[in-house]
């Protein structure tokens, strides 16, 4: 990847606008000036099996009918719909594809009848870890994953995404132990290698069919860290550093040809936008239905799509939850787009309000502050490979947090400050050379048998 940032000036780091625009679906343009709502939903408590399948279909029908009707009523100019498969629907690809078709047909009809511009993102859930240790490149689960991918164009998907989990075998353990070396190994070595393999495969399919390869997410690592920090299991500073460590891994998808918008749950998005120029989808306050976070506003500051992450199809006082989310997102986006129509000063003012309302309060919010994103991105891309980049990501995030907490720019709890020192000490012991780190990690008894090195080309 080129060693210059695609966005290197803070006045060019704006919501709704990305250096590379993605055009897809029914006249949708992402990153061309408007922030677009991305609606996501899931099933309420129910079993997915043959007996229940009609009921499952009915649920998705009810969801999409409600969502589209609301979008039309609120005159949403463009809409992104994300369908994330549940494990049963990946493991039986025809199920996942049947729902994809159903959603696409409804969206087509709505475009014809009401002119609602829309695109459908199919996010495949990574089922490879049903084998433990997982087989990443062969076997039944890899076959299922390919099965749904290969039917996606015909089923009407406009964009493909995945939340891949390569390296998570080590990632979980690394998180609960606040082991920064193991986190870098999980994300920057194992994760990055798996992404290269996986995204090569995905973009190859997309090139043949015209489906847009959108992006991946380090959800299983960095959002797990965020949830753990919210539960006071691990220090927030560690979760913030893991977020930044996840950047080089997610960049691999883009290097392999992913075009964006990056996944909503990939809060590393602002880094990807600054470095690679792709449009990004983000989530925050309007995703509180899915999980709590300390980054509800700052996550919106430079987004191109704005998502609710996910909500179950359950009844609220007004309507079903996905319809409620649709309404919230529509209003969020309206506000941003009206501000944008007044010109760049207004965009910057709103962006900075969003950023300033969160970033001094939590280190995880601070590392998403646009100025900090640019500063750290610059340092990340000065490195050559994902390992070196991840190491640099960890170093610079730690340094910035220490520096700016001293200056009172970000609040860090008293009992977390010592963790910054401990993380810094851990970082000093890590080798500059990837091979050496691999060697060290392979020696560690607790990791033995957890993952298969050959599946990562090691």
């Amino acid at each position, binding site marked *: 990847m080129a060693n210059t940032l695609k966005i290197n000036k803070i006045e060019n780091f704006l919501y709704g606008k990305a250096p590379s625009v993605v055009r897809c679906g029914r006249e949708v343009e992402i990153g061309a000036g408007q922030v677009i709502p991305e609606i996501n939903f*899931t099933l309420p408590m129910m*079993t*997915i099996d043959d007996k229940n399948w009609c009921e499952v279909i009915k649920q998705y029908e009810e969801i999409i009918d409600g969502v589209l009707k609301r979008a039309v009523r609120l005159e949403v100019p463009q809409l992104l719909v994300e369908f994330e498969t*549940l494990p049963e629907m990946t493991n039986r690809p025809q199920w996942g594809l049947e729902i994809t078709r159903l959603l696409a047909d409804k969206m087509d009809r709505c475009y014809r009848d009401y002119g609602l511009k829309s695109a459908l993102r199919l996010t495949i859930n990574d089922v490879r870890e049903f084998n*433990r240790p997982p087989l990443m490149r062969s076997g039944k689960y890899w076959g299922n994953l390919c099965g749904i991918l290969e039917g996606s164009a015909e089923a009407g998907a406009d964009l493909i995404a995945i939340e891949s989990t390569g390296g998570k075998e080590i990632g979980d353990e690394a998180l*609960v132990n606040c082991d920064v070396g193991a986190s870098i190994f999980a994300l920057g070595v194992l994760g990055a290698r798996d992404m290269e393999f996986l995204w090569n495969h995905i973009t190859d399919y997309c090139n043949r069919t015209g489906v847009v390869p959108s992006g991946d997410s380090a959800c299983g690592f960095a959002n797990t860290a965020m949830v753990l920090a919210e539960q*006071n299991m*691990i220090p927030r500073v560690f979760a913030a550093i893991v977020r930044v460590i996840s950047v080089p891994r997610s960049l691999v998808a883009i290097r392999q040809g992913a075009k964006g918008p990056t996944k909503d749950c990939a809060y590393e998005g602002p880094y990807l936008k600054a470095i690679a120029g792709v449009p990004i989808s983000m989530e925050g306050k309007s995703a509180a239905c899915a999980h709590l976070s300390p980054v509800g506003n700052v996550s919106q500051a430079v987004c191109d799509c704005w998502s609710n992450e996910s909500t179950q199809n359950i009844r609220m006082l007004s309507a079903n939850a996905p319809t409620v989310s649709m309404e919230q997102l529509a209003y969020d986006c309206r506000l941003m787009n009206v501000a944008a129509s007044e010109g760049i000063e207004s965009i910057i003012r709103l962006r900075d309000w969003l950023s300033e309302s969160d970033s001094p309060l939590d280190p995880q919010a601070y590392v998403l502050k646009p100025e900090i994103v640019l500063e750290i991105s610059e340092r990340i891309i000065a490195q050559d490979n994902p390992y070196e980049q991840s190491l640099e990501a960890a170093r610079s995030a730690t340094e910035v947090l220490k520096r700016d907490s001293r200056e009172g720019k970000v609040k860090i709890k008293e009992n977390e400050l010592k963790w910054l020192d401990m993380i810094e000490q851990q970082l000093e012991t890590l080798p500059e050379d990837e091979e050496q780190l691999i060697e060290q990690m392979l020696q560690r008894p607790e990791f033995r048998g957890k993952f298969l090195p050959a599946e990562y080309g090691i």
Partner: protein
Amino acid sequence: MADMKDLADAIIKGDMKTAVEVTKKALDEGVEPQKVLNDGLVAGMGVIGKRFKANEVYIPEVLIAARAMKSAMEVLEPKLTEAGVEPVGKALIGTVQGDLHDIGKNLVIMMLKGNGFEVVDAGVDVSPDAFVEKARSSGAKLIGLSALLTTTMPAMEKTIQALRNAGVEAKIMIGGAPITQAYSDKIQADGYAPDAASAVDLAMDLVVA
């Protein structure tokens, strides 16, 4: 004289070497294994557990203490068995069929172990039949089921039915982000806990009471 307070402190600090040394010394000096366990190891873990509940320390520190305890337990366990001391209880914990989320489950296991439970980890994606089989072979008095997906919650009910139909009498507790007390009542589990620390209290209530 081996001091049980030194042992508890070693656990709190996660000082594995000292924990093992003091345990050995105490046993050599003829201190009762039960006393070493309760006044040294469990007391130390108790302090860490309280600090964790009060948000003074984080899980990594609890894990370090737990590892020190584990090493000391390796020395102590044969003596406990000789003396006929039983663990607080034996538990079997797993994530239900179709579900791979296991961080929460693993934390529950860790906290139970730290409080003197013997725990069999059934793993993830565990079918009702596999739960029945593992319940039988382990003889666990307490079974814990974890689920994080709305679409795998029904597997909890199926598992409970399968266990009951097979005549397994162990107490059953459930947990995971989407689970509620109401759901637990509905599927007739014996209890629900919202987090790992309260899971320990619940486990104590269920098996010790």
